[in-house]
């Protein structure tokens, strides 16, 4: 401490910091106040430089740690270790604040939510994502993740809402990437709707997807398959045909087109597509034969054609042949139906059985009193139809029909009535011929109705 005060010049006792005049007695050994001020400014500049380096080191370190722990967390998540993934991703988020981009931070947060979900902490994941959502409600990825979570929690209405938000939300990436993300989301949403038996909703979404599909056979087939599931065979056929335009030998597209045509009632086209598919080489890993449903459809379509005696453009001999075949199938349908419900039909003899005898036989074979009323009705109908079949037996021969083409119409009428009776009392048929007959009847009934 100096012995005299710089301010008033009075002596200052040793150990005192301030003079009696109030001035700071210790001025240090650096000289005047202005010199010290100047040195202070220089020190400030130096401090700025040092701090800049320190801050840069700090931010770089934190960014590296954030990326490291994010990588660890993602690996753990993919490996199925949800608990470790959760801890790692939480650590990543700690270091991510202010040191990574917003998009990266959101990716961290979304992965954390997935880890929470994988760890069966659905409520926490939901709360976490909802919190994020309130900050960025238009983030498509966030909405998609919320949709997944809501679906897992059984909140159907929320899931649908978030899916819709995700489709029309903001995606990060190039325009092509964004378009693909939207399309993938739409397809995922469609799948969700189909799984929840909301076919009409799925159709709407799929129609939107179909409007902007690229020229990609796989994509068309995927959409076509979902259209079929949603009960829109016409749109499905359109998609499969577009797939075939890209690759006309694509077996899966041919099968899909065939099934779609079959569902639309166009048997010839169905046979054409499925026939082509059956001769294409199956891709590696798939069976050489057609899938079971395609095979059945092909059989039914083929059978349908062989029964369709009303098809335009066929010759009288072919018509007679088909009508005779249809009669046999209808008769067999009645016999099988009666057998399945325990009704005994009269044995066909030369000529025909009288109604009284038919009635007596029916009474002798009547079921127990409990089912008497309904079975009576079924038996009556079946016996009546069968009697008609027996009455028409002579006129159902192919040769007779060839000579008397006018007999085809009443025979056809009988065939359809027999099918109606059998369907009413025995339900949907299982055999190929019976199914074909049912389809034939339904098709012409619909045409007559129009």
């Amino acid at each position, binding site marked *: 401490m100096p012995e005299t005060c710089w301010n008033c010049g009075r002596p200052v006792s040793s150990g005192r910091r301030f003079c009696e005049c109030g001035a700071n007695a210790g001025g240090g050994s650096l000289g005047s106040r*202005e010199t010290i001020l100047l040195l202070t400014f220089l020190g400030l500049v130096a401090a700025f430089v040092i*701090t800049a380096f320190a801050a840069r080191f700090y931010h770089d*370190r934190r960014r590296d740690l954030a990326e490291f722990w994010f990588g660890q967390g993602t690996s753990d998540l993919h490996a199925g270790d949800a608990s470790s993934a959760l801890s790692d991703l*939480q650590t990543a988020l700690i270091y991510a604040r202010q040191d990574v981009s917003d998009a990266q931070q959101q990716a961290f947060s979304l992965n954390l939510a997935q880890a929470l979900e994988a760890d069966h902490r659905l409520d926490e994941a939901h709360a976490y994502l909802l919190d994020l959502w309130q900050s960025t409600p238009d983030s498509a990825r966030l909405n998609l993740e919320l949709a997944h979570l809501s679906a897992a929690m059984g909140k159907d209405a929320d899931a649908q809402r978030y899916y819709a938000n995700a489709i029309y939300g903001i995606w990060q990436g190039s325009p092509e990437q964004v378009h693909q993300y939207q399309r993938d989301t739409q397809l995922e949403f469609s799948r969700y709707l189909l799984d929840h038996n909301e076919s009409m909703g799925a159709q709407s979404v799929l129609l939107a997807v179909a409007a902007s599909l690229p020229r990609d056979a796989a994509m068309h087939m995927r959409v076509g398959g979902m259209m079929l599931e949603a009960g829109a065979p016409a749109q499905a056929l359109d998609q499969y045909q577009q797939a075939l335009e890209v690759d006309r030998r694509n077996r899966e597209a041919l099968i899909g087109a065939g099934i779609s045509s079959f569902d639309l009632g166009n048997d010839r086209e169905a046979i054409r597509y499925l026939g082509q598919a059956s001769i294409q080489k199956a891709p590696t890993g798939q069976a050489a034969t057609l899938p079971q449903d395609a095979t059945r459809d092909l059989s039914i379509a083929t059978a349908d054609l062989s029964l369709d005696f009303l098809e335009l453009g066929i010759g009288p001999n072919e018509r007679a042949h088909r009508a005779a075949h249809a009669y046999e199938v209808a008769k067999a349908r009645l016999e099988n139906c009666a057998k399945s419900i325990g009704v005994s039909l009269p044995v066909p003899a030369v000529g025909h059985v009288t109604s009284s005898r038919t009635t007596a036989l029916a009474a002798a074979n009547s079921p127990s009193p409990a089912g008497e009323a309904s079975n009576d009705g079924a038996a009556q109908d079946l016996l009546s139809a069968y009697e008609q079949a027996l009455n028409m037996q002579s006129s159902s021969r192919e040769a007779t029909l060839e000579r008397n083409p006018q007999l085809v119409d009443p025979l056809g009428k009988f065939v359809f009535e027999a099918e109606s009776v059998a369907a009413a009392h025995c339900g949907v048929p299982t055999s190929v011929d019976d199914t074909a007959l049912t389809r034939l009847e339904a098709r012409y009934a619909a045409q007559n109705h129009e």
Partner: protein
Amino acid sequence: MSESTEPVTDRNAPVTETAPGVPPAEPLRSPGFVRRAAVASWGALEALRARLSMREDNLFLLLSVVIGLFSGLAVVCFRVAIDLSRLTLLGSAAAPGPLRVILVPTAMGVVLSVLAFRIFPNVRGSGVTQTKSAMYVYDGYIPFNTVIGKFITCALAIGSGQSLGPEDPSLQMGAGLASALGRRLRLSRDKVRLIAPVGAAAGLAAAFNSPIAAVLFVIEEVIGTWSGGVLGAVVLAAVSSVVVARIFLGAEPMFQIPPYRMVHWLELLGYAVLGIVGGLSSLAFVKLLAFMRPRLRALPHWTIWVQPALAGLIIGIIGLKFPQVMGAGYEYMDQAMHGQFVWQVLIALALLKVFATSLSVSSGVPGGMFAPTLFIGAMVGAAVGSVQLHYFPGHTGPLGSYALVGMGTLFAGFLRVPMTSVFMVLEISGNYSIILPVMVSNTIAYLISRQFQPTPIFDILTRQDGLDLPSMEENREQVVLRVESAMRQPVGLILKASDTASDAASRLGEMAEDPLLVSYETGRWTLVHKAELENAVSSGQGSLSLREILPGPRLSRLHPDQPLDVALRLMRDAPFLPVVHRADARRLIGILSLEDILAAYRRVSGAVVSSAASPEVASQAALND
């Protein structure tokens, strides 16, 4: 001492300089290039020095900005040091391995005890009370090695997992930097005393990234006044430091919560419940700390070397199951705001943090209490919000809002700084829509804490240290005596300046009072003695008006609402002063004398002693007596 300065008697007078310095005395034989360059540089330097010469008031303001910049840089480096310390000692994982969790705080406790008790003896404590004591006891003197020691010890303490925060130490470091600069620049005693809180505000503002809250805290808790001179400097320093901190650490709010919107007006009841719970929590925190600290200090002296290590060991054991309790805990506050803990865990964390922080503080580990207070508040708030969300889902907003309000609630209840707590919440969240719930909750917590714990925590700590510092809360709550409570009714004749001397003298016989008040039409007042009137009459000036006879100085006027402090300053040698109406200075309401003032103070002092609200106040009053 510069050879160019002249001795000056006025302590605030600028330090004068002579003309720019001259080259060395010896004559130059043949000036070369180097010598010419040296001369030119010296001249420039002297010119710069002359420019920097300024009055102390201006220097003080400039220094405030410089202190703000230095404090901001120091806080940034402090944050980096804490981070580096944490990464080195505990690793980068959020939940370090069990061996590390146990060993590191324990081992660093040993190191800290050596540093804090041997090498840097002034670094113990949070920093707030130490700054106050520097200001009121040591004329603003804070040794610079305290700044260095605080930096090192707190970085190690927080980084090793002690349950402490960086804000209070930042406050003390800022104050220390300011004190060092002020002394180096030879500021007067008054200015050096005032520069410490300027630095304190700068340090706190940078640490919290919130200038308004820092300014309010320093004014509420350190300075205790709103004087214009220091307020300007404090604001300048706080803003400067925040600017620097944001340059290097980013300008994002400390916590990101969705914008608040009131779901239902009944939600305010929920925040009222939070206020009650927060108030009780802060009460528990204060009581535990006030209980634990003196008892640990009362242990044998040699235990000071092991107390920090034992505290570290206990915190490490807690950290095995709840690592969130270690360190400042900001990242876990963020997680609580995003609903990542169930309410049972939140309550557990709050309770454990109260215990751990009390342990760390009481064992003498250097470090702050602000961050732990916020942590406890966040956990309590999120817990209350979780329960309300469960039972009243339609009337409860997002959990983040409850956690945020909870922070402010604990701040108000524990630290007893209600204004600061409101603005702090607004600034750290950047979310001004939440002000109503904050005010409701904070007020309730503050009132509960004040009702059941009259002495604030900082006053408890300073009194435990044997210091008698002014209590800002007690100062705020002291009754301000005003003129109206001390004045008395005027008695006797009031003369007018237009009255003649003889007229006035004729009425003197009626009056016992002397001197008498004289009223002017302009609203001014003066006094006249009876002897003066009698002299005027006897000397033939009886027909003159009092205005002509009394040329003396007018009396100062008082108003009823003015504090007695103002009256004392205006009293000077007058026997009494008139108390007049503010709208009509000619209307006399009363008179006030020095005796009246003293009597009023005596009445108040007597009332405080007889109905002491707290033992501390009664004992203080007894000491004063």
